[in-house]
């Protein structure tokens, strides 16, 4: 199969992860990087791509696909422009911070070659857990416990543009809940605090949260979030079924255990998303190539992004108002 020419839009933290994977991918040729910042030229040089303007990339019919890794406020603008230009689109999450805008744009992406960067859906451990559940090994799923703890708080400058903990961070777990429960939440409750960094609180955000989702059939999901976990990037799923429990545990940096007079000790868990989800990012890109080639339907759609954003908005409302939110597509 011919390589697909692809452009990277945004060469920041996530852009560099996806750009490097794209540059090495046998199904892709990383042609261009769209990023006005001076640092981008070094990355372009490293990856053998050229710096290009967005308009030029969109007008170039030989570039069939784009990887949108721009700042969150530009995701939707870039996605719509790329869609207009007929490109296959990989877009980092979230689709937007504004639910109304995202909903209004949703019809444009129905059936489109569009993969949203909900990386957990492509993590081999989580994929294996879902397969184990689907096999019936633990019976029917009754409840979920999702742990998602970041190693360290983002810089304060990131908080005002992030959309807050729920839209920026919890959104991954809200998507996982939908993916694993295969049923939409009917009620949402979020308890949240600022315990890690008072600066986050001054900016009106929270850094520690617990979310409880219940579905119409009474199934439950608890989400545990913090912006700072001193022992690494804590990423786990527990799926409780009628006949047992399926657990996807943390990935340790190596398998060595030492046993001494004071007890036993193991290696730290993976320190952050780049290391923990390295395989997920690759699998996600593999999937995007298949979608761009027309060989697969997207496993992580724009509509999934809208659904998770709506849940994030409900979490935010619940935490602010201290009440549980009924959810039927819209938080009320």
């Amino acid at each position: 199969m011919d390589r697909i020419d692809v452009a990277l839009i945004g060469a920041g933290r996530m852009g560099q992860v996806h750009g490097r994977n794209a540059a090495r991918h046998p199904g892709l040729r990383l042609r261009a990087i769209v990023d006005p910042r001076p640092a981008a030229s070094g990355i372009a040089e490293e990856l053998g791509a050229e710096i290009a303007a967005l308009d030029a990339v969109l007008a170039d019919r030989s570039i069939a696909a784009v990887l949108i890794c721009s700042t969150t406020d530009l995701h939707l603008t870039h996605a719509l422009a790329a869609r207009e230009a007929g490109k296959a689109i990989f877009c980092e999450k979230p689709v937007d911070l504004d639910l109304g805008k995202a909903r209004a744009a949703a019809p444009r992406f129905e059936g489109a070659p569009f993969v949203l960067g909900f990386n957990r859906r492509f993590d081999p451990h989580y994929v294996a857990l879902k397969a184990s559940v689907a096999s019936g090994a633990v019976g029917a799923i009754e409840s979920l416990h999702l742990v998602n703890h970041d190693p360290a708080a983002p810089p304060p400058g990131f908080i005002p543009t992030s959309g807050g903990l729920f839209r920026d961070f919890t959104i991954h777990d809200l998507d996982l809940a939908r993916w694993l429960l295969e049923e939409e939440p009917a009620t949402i409750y979020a308890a949240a605090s600022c315990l890690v960094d008072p600066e986050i609180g001054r900016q009106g955000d929270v850094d520690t949260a617990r979310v409880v989702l219940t579905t119409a059939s009474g199934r439950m999901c608890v989400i545990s979030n913090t912006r700072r976990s001193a022992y690494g990037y804590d990423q786990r799923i527990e799926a409780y079924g009628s006949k047992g429990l399926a657990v996807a545990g943390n990935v340790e940096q190596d398998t060595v255990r030492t046993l001494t007079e004071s007890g036993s000790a193991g290696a730290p868990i993976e320190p952050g998303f780049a290391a923990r989800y390295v395989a997920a990012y690759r699998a996600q890109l593999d999937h995007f190539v298949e979608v761009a080639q027309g060989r697969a339907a997207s496993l992580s759609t724009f509509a999934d992004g809208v659904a998770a954003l709506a849940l994030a908005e409900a979490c935010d409302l619940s935490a602010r108002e201290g009440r549980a939110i009924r959810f039927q597509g819209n938080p009320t």
Partner: protein
Amino acid sequence: MSAQRRYNVVLLGAGRIGRIHAANAARHARIALAGVVDPIAASARSLADEWQAPVTSLEAALADPAIDGVIIASSTDTHLEYCLRATAAGKAIFCEKPIDQDLARARSAATALSGARLLLAFNRRFDPNFRALKARLDSGALGTLESLQITSNDPSPPPPSYVAVSGGLFKDMAIHDFDTARWLLGEEPVQVYAVGSCLVDPQIGKLGDVDTARTVLKTASGRLCVISNSRRSGFGYDQRIEAYASQGMARADNVVASTVQVWGEAGAAADRFQNFFLDRYAAAYRHEMDHFADVLAGAPASVGYADGVAALALAEAAAESVRSGQPVIL
């Protein structure tokens, strides 16, 4: 040197948990099992014979100046009354949880029981694993505690006849976890939100109870605790705590029946968890009885009437939250 004195205690209630406490009391170096009381004569007789103790009555035990204390392991509806009668008779009290099923009634006993020599048997506080977890937190090695995850899943649901008189999942089962939360947080929850479903056994739902629940507690300083409960895990008695602190996390994991693990073509397999509370908390029950010996000797109880009332208040709030669908402010 004279032999250390053994304190005479009488057991009230020769049921499942009573038999555990009878054995631990009878085998204890500082305690003598001096009588067994049970309305079912055959139950009282068989347990009394097992430990060569007499069958007696509550009235006789309370009137006997040679009896130092009572172990209340009778049905829940008698706990509070027996506590009141025993303390009026000047006895030290070991009382099974819950102190009562009715918060107002439990609170009405405050005058009589606040100063009582009363050990309320929240067994988790005496479990060596959970104690070790608390010791790590108290040492400061992990920084400041920020949040807790308490998992308490029973292996299989109790019979409907038990559910009907249990007071419901929150007062009967989650009450342990409410106490554990208070014990570890060292701070009272001010907000309680709970969801409950009947997913395990429709019969439990018909009786108006739930069998699956999640509760979120929030303290005044913003610390959070999630409690997970199910009446049926499908994989044994699932009893775990994770304590998240500013500099690390402490976890007390399940205790396995054996440490054997096997690897085969299909993967790895480990042994099942110790099944149900009589096994899982065997050491905790012994430590509880050790502490009761201390209380009999005059030491203050580390967990007592006020803790029982506080946990009951959280259980009532959780049940109210399930009914209303909204968090309850305490």
